[in-house]
């Protein structure tokens, strides 16, 4: 079964440094989501793409976070500068989104530790 690919799996960075995460969704999936999951907590939607367009970034801290999906395929999430509170799992998911029963397919995430 096709999978959502994410890299790196783990990232340790010092505060004030820049960090980037990459996601390659399942082929043909038009909708891509970036979620943040702080340890022991639920999922917080950071940004949602439909093809190359952002449809929801209301929870994205835009002063330090940016996301792009230039060709409507893979996506990059960037944090600059990183803060201690950014330590979390960053999950990418994709969906066909052609019908309401389209499930989300998740990658294995990038665990970020900011020191």
């Amino acid at each position, binding site marked *: 079964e096709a999978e959502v690919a994410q890299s790196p799996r783990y990232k340790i960075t010092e505060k004030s440094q820049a960090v980037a995460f990459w996601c390659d969704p399942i082929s043909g999936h*038009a909708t891509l989501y970036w979620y943040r999951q702080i340890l*022991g907590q639920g999922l917080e939607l950071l940004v949602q793409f439909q093809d190359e367009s952002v449809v929801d970034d209301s929870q994205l801290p835009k002063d330090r976070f940016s996301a792009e999906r230039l060709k409507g395929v893979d996506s990059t999430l960037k944090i600059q500068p990183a803060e201690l509170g950014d330590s979390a799992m960053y999950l990418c998911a994709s969906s066909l989104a052609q019908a*309401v029963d389209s499930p*989300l397919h*998740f990658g294995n995430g990038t665990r970020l530790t900011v020191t």
Partner: protein
Amino acid sequence: AQSVTQLDSQVPVFEEAPVELRCNYSSSVSVYLFWYVQYPNQGLQLLLKYLSGSTLVKGINGFEAEFNKSQTSFHLRKPSVHISDTAEYFCAVTWLDNYGQNFVFGPGTRLSVLP
């Protein structure tokens, strides 16, 4: 607005005992319901989904869930749990709008199966 409540943040249960994980939702539009499971350091996997029809839905790994519209609930059950069921379980609602498919997740329930 749509929201999902999972009242139990942690559920410890002995192996081979039954378990029920509770999920309640609130919505101003028609939504559909999913349960996802997350094993340590992994992304989320789809357990089961309810769209319409029979209110009792069977999923993978012996799990089932019952949709109750009047109580706006979608509780997850398993008659006999295994050690390998230890994981975080998330209930989610999904709906379509002009911008695509949307998801809201509950805060999760950590199931710990004890020997």
